[in-house]
């Protein structure tokens, strides 16, 4: 699964630590999601969508459909 977390974070000039705090996860988790090593759970994806005020599918894309 691809995601735009890194881009969205950069647009806001946020560090991984800042995003981790906002989503209440570790910085390691943010890094693993950004590098595509780990796919977040649905609740975490919803949390990210709420944080960036976007739809989940605008942040996370299934690679099969892209």
């Amino acid at each position: 699964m691809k995601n735009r977390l890194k881009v969205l974070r950069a647009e806001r000039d946020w560090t991984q630590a800042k995003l981790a705090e906002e989503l209440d996860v570790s910085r390691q988790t943010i890094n693993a999601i950004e590098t595509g090593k780990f796919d977040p759970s649905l609740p975490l994806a919803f949390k990210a969508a709420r944080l960036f005020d976007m739809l989940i599918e605008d942040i996370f894309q299934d690679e099969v459909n892209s």
Partner: protein
Amino acid sequence: MNKTNAETKTNKAYSRDRVSEAKVIYWCLAWTLATAGATFGPELWGYGTLITSIGIAIQLAIGFGMIWTFKGFLLAMDELQRLIQLEAISLAFGVGVVVGLSYELLEDVKLITFEPEISHLIMLMALTYMFGLFLGNRHYR
């Protein structure tokens, strides 16, 4: 230099994790001491039934306390950290069952002359668990 709010909060979360880890370590230490007491104590007090039973009951109670604390430690983690723990625990459990049975079999078919010790298996599982954590953290870093 002033820290940002996020850095301060992350440091607080980091401190919470450290406190949670410390609790698990203290419980493990207490359980190890209780196990040593229950193992070697009876020799000191002449295998008295009541005091030996109390020693084992204490060891068991501390063991359950350790399990409960570890459960809390896992629940306090985020989903990636929990996945790393799950993979490490699965590896340790799998290796423990497979190697443990083969180890027991070695004695049954007389390929080894000594009695297999449960402590060897526990050491193997502990080392496998630590190796699993190392692999997981390296993979998801």
